[in-house]
């Protein structure tokens, strides 16, 4: 019996061995993998990723990354000077495979004021490339490295003051696929969290400079996905169809905060912990360290909007760490009855909630002088305060948050609507024939802001064009007293 087994093993070994010889050589060390040809790397701006490496052989991969310092919008009406890899925050996504030899060209645009460099966590060598890539404005530095280990890695600028370069948006992801590539999925997306520190408080309009002291204290004004509030909502929302498997390459640039990444209404089937080789399954919330990443995979079963958040939840609803994955397709009532929403939105349980009134509400700095300004300011407030639940086009979320678009409930009674914004609303209501039994918290915004945002809502999406004035708001407020 024993000898028979031995014999089988021997046969099997011989068979395996011959099999290997016929196919190709296996390299035990990644550094021994030869590269065949040159190839220019495809780089993509978030939320997109380049094509998978698939079965291609290791190559000499030429990466050309341009550094741009440019002004952009961090939130409605709030401007910020970003420093970027490739013109986007996070920077361009790089996709390579184990054994690739990457020739990295770091180009610092002549209009830039500052020198920069790049530290790729996928590099084995001092500074992760930072020392060899320190480049003055109007110059290009070239260095090369052999890709040794598979995984999802962060890259960032490491020029002094390092924290400031990262805080201004200089980070991104480089994916190193194993030989043969990652298992194929239906949709792949690139999302990265980052925290921003501005001289003005969250929402303060105009060009906001970087605030060094807040950054040192790690008191972020904005915590966002993909560089700005609302980058992943509205037209920027991620999409998938029922039954598809989605893979999110999720990174955290920091500089200061660790992300508790969660998707409301979805369980992650697989998470490669910290972007490495360990795979965890059935994860609700995964921790993504600053300067770290994770690959997250899940199959979407039920249509609807899924909300990406940092589950340090005030960051999501008050600082911008909120994105959407819109899933279309047929309902599956076996999996989800469609009756109630996740309770995550209401961590303190039922009852009208009020934000703590530790400080007085600040009146909006610039009062609206015209209808146009009311609309403009109202839209900003909507983007900061209402969009999370009522959605970008006022469509709401079925069974959870009633629509504001073409809303009979809203158009029927303006004072009732003002009251809801001022004091909150709970209990069953019927909007456009659908029953909702949810809770809206009292909104801590000024009377002026209430007037602006409601004017915006009433004059959008097919509503009855009521103009709400601060006086009307005041009247409702005083009646309640």
């Amino acid at each position: 019996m024993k000898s028979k087994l031995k014999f089988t093993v021997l046969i099997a070994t011989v068979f395996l061995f011959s099999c290997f010889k016929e196919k190709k050589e296996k390299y035990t060390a990644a550094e021994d993998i030869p590269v065949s040809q040159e190839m220019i790397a495809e780089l993509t701006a978030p939320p997109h990723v380049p094509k998978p490496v698939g079965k291609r052989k290791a190559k000499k991969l030429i990466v050309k990354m341009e550094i741009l310092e440019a002004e952009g919008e961090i939130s409605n009406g709030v401007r910020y000077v970003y420093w970027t890899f490739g013109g986007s925050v996070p920077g361009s996504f790089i996709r390579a495979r184990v054994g690739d030899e990457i020739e990295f060209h770091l180009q610092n645009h002549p209009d830039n004021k500052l020198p920069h460099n790049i530290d790729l966590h996928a590099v084995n060598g001092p500074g992760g490339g930072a020392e060899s890539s320190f480049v003055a404005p109007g110059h290009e530095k070239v260095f090369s490295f052999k890709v040794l280990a598979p995984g999802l890695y962060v890259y960032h600028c490491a020029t002094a003051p390092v924290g400031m370069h990262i805080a201004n948006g200089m980070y991104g992801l480089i994916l190193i696929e194993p030989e043969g590539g990652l298992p194929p999925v239906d949709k792949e997306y690139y999302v990265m969290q980052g925290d921003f520190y501005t001289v003005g408080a969250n929402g303060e309009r105009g060009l906001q400079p970087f605030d060094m002291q807040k950054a040192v204290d790690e008191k972020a004004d904005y915590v966002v996905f993909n560089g700005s509030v609302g980058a992943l909502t509205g037209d920027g929302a991620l999409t998938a169809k029922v039954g598809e498997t989605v893979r999110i390459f999720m990174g955290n640039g920091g500089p200061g905060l660790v992300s508790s990444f969660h998707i409301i209404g979805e369980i992650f089937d697989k998470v490669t912990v910290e972007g490495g080789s360990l795979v965890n399954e059935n994860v609700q919330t995964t921790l993504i360290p600053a300067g770290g990443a994770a690959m997250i995979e899940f199959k979407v079963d039920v249509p609807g909007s899924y909300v990406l958040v940092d589950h340090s939840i005030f960051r999501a609803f008050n600082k911008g760490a909120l994105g959407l994955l819109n899933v279309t397709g047929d309902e599956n009532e076996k999996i989800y009855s469609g009756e109630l929403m996740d309770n995550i939105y209401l961590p303190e349980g039922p009852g009208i909630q009020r934000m703590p009134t530790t400080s007085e509400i600040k009146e909006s700095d610039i009062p609206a002088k015209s209808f146009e300004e009311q609309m403009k300011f109202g839209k900003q407030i909507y983007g900061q305060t209402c969009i999370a639940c009522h959605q970008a086009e006022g469509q709401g979320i079925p069974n959870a948050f009633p629509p504001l678009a073409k809303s009979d409930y809203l158009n029927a009674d303006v004072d009732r609507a003002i009251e809801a914004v001022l004091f909150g609303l709970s209990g069953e209501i019927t909007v456009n024939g659908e029953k909702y039994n949810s809770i809206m918290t009292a909104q801590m915004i000024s009377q002026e802001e209430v007037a602006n945002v409601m004017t915006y809502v009433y004059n959008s999406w097919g509503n009855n064009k009521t103009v709400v004035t601060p006086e009307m708001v005041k009247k409702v407020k005083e009646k309640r007293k």
Partner: protein
Amino acid sequence: MRTKFFRLSFVLIFVHMFSFGQSEDMVRINGARYIPLYGRDSTVVEVKDFDLDKYPVTNEQYMEFVRKFPEWQKSNAKKIFADGMYLRNWKNNFELNDGADLKSPVTYVSWFAAKAYCDCQGKRLPTMDEWEYAAMADETTKDARIKKSYNEKILSWYEAPRSNENQIGQNPKNYWGVYDLHGLVWEWTSDFNSVLLSGESRKDKDGDNNLFCGSASLGATDLMNYAAFMRYAFRGSIKANFAIKNLGFRCAKDIETP
């Protein structure tokens, strides 16, 4: 007789001032000992009295210079002394690009070019320690580095685009009467790369002495001085033949003791 003598001595003093003293384009900086963010020894540095140009050198002044010294004209400058970006915002040897201003600071000049310019004026480039010393003043104090407003102002310039196209003299003058040390362009210093590259500075440290990651803070004296970090980082990234859009210069001069 007595008045004549007076008059003569007056004239002598005047002549003396004219030949040895500061010109009207320069101001006297009274030296002292101070601690820069990075010194060559990361400790106290002594700066002697010196004269410094009130303003950065302008396109107009530089054009005058290249008329006299054709070897520094745009078409003649040697690549090893000034790279391909040299005077990039000039149309040709004697004309600026449309939109460029004669009263703007000259930029896209290499260290070699800046040094030659100052030499030809009987001046020299300021040392990094001198430059940093003069630049740590705000409008009212010699050393404003601890003031929040001072740092914020400088940092906001670092984020402001295209400031090199502004005219000189629009920022308020500092305590010494010097304009535009901050808020316009970076400026060359004679020993711009000594913090990173001099043999001396390396011997003090056992590890890397550079401006990346952790090492950036090892040798620094004031970790909150982000503005200065960025200046030193910038200087560390350049070479003497680089000509850069946001980099100009001004000249300094020793005080001659007769």
